[in-house]
């Protein structure tokens, strides 16, 4: 890869992450079924479904949970195309690559064989591969639904109400802000380097430039942390943080949570081996 290609690859990677974040933020503010629930109810409900996906031992139960995920996406105005492009297809490709050899390597009763390659597929191998792919697809769909329908600040509020230590919530909140700030700084550094590069750089120089850029980013980060700490002290920060937004669970949220939990329990029961 040329220097321009290496630097451009990093710039594109960072830009894509930032673009994804903006798309998710937009989806989180659309009116929809999941968005209308309290973030705590959403978190508990979707996590109970993810747990059910991993606890179910039957393919039919896992496929039912995947279908429920697709239905929830539809009712929450999360496009099926978006799910297909960002979740289903990449997960399918990755999981299939991982699971395919298991079809032939798992010991068990023979299902079919490829004589030219002397490979013999087993029923157990086929079952294991199908379970793995469907399980990962269903879990990724439900996790993505949580991510795209919940603004980051609501996730933090939910974590705080679940008694996660306030320092951790504060660090998560600050990290989220710094990620965007530092991403912009890193992109600008790579862009400026790219614009000053004429001809090609050998790989050792490219490596040197990348590590030096990371070093400068680290120095800037440390400087920033010092400045932010002083600013926090100036505003009276003494190590304690309080959330301003308080939220109360409504009857609708309890109902939603109960529906999720009941469905998850049903799928675990139906999916037991």
């Amino acid at each position, binding site marked *: 890869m040329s220097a321009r290609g290496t*630097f451009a690859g990093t710039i594109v990677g960072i830009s894509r*992450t930032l673009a994804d974040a903006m798309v998710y933020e937009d989806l989180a503010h659309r009116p929809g079924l999941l968005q209308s629930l309290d973030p705590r109810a959403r978190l508990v409900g979707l996590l109970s479904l993810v747990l059910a996906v991993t606890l179910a031992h039957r393919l039919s139960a896992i496929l039912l949970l995947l279908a429920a995920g697709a239905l929830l996406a539809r009712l929450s105005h999360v496009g099926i195309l978006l799910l297909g492009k960002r979740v289903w297809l990449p997960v399918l490709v990755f999981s299939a690559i991982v699971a395919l050899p*298991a079809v032939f390597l798992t010991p068990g009763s023979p299902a079919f064989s490829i004589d030219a390659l002397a490979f013999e597929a087993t029923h157990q191998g086929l079952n294991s591969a199908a379970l793995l792919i469907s399980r990962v697809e269903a879990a*990724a769909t439900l996790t993505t639904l949580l991510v795209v329908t919940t603004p980051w600040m609501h996730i933090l509020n939910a974590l705080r109400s679940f008694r996660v230590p306030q320092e951790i919530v504060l*660090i998560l909140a600050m990290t989220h802000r710094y990620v965007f700030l530092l991403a912009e700084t890193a992109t600008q550094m790579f862009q400026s380097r790219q614009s000053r590069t004429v001809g090609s750089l050998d790989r050792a120089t490219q490596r040197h430039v990348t590590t030096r850029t990371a070093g*400068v980013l*680290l120095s800037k980060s440390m400087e920033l942390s010092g400045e932010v*700490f002083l600013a926090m002290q100036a505003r009276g*920060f003494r190590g304690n943080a309080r959330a301003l937004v308080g939220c109360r669970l409504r009857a609708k949220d309890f109902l939603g949570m109960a529906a999720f939990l009941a469905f998850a329990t049903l799928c675990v029961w139906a999916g037991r081996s």
Partner: protein
Amino acid sequence: MHIPDGYLSPSTCAVLYGGSGIAWYTSLRRVRHSLNARMVPLIAVFAAFSFLVMMFNLPLPGGTTGHAIGVSVAAIVLGPAGAILSVSVAVAIQALFFGDGGILALGANCFNMAVVGSLFAYASYRLVAGGAALTSHRRVIAAAIAGYVAINLSALLAAIEFGIQPMFFHDTGGAPLYAPYPLRIAVPAMMIGHLAIAGVAEAVITAGLVAYLQSSDPALLRTTSGLVTDGSALTPTSLRHLWITVALLLLLTPLGILAAGKAWGEWSIHEFSEPRGRARIQAASRDEAPPAASPAGLRRLSTIWTAPLPAYAPRFIKSAGFGYFLSAMFGVGCVLASSLALQAVLRGRRSLGPPQ
């Protein structure tokens, strides 16, 4: 190395959440105790930095590119407690905000990368760097080794987590329910890429960053250098705590004899010829019958070295518990003696070397 949901069983996830939970609690307590409010923005900034470093395309020797995690730099600059928290936060944001890595598997991902990665990166860096000056080349080499060791140990742990799934979790027909490959496939499949690419990427970026800090801001390397006795370096109090912990673990060693059975693959050649031994091997190998005779290679190699304290049971001690305890004492004594000898050698070399 970000494990998605579905590859690990819920019980594996729960155990690893427990392991990470202990590390988070201890790190948080240490950070609260030693560095107070200043650490909050520092950890947050470092978590963001770690998040971004994972996106950097790093050209590697051989024509490929790799991505680092940044765990070793965090361990070298912040110390293990700060690194555990900052890398955990980066991994949590990837899972909760970008859907990269599972939520149920978050404990496993944090345990592999943030907890084990930080601890081993810090330990390797301190061990190799010794008391070298902040601007010494030895620290750059120590950083590279720390990065390589940390990533590969994290990957090995992930491989073991994958590899134990088919041993414990399969349906009534024998089909694995989660990650389908046993250890003999999972470990090499995972390690080849990490030993050849990801480990090199982490080593290059860690060494490069330490070299950069040495020239631009060496003060950032002071906290974990061992050259000063601040809150994060080993103080007499922390050393006393370490000794108390080692003593407690020594006292608890007889618990080891309560464990039933034998670890898979740790069989002696005699067990292949005894009916009871053969039954044990078969039961532990998912009903696969062992070979009729012990493997020739095992027979040949098993006579090369005879352990002075075989099976942790000295022949001259009748009590199994006391024998186990004495073996533990002997083992700890050997480790301490080797460490002191290594320290003496390194100190001797430093005093002979040119002034820095």
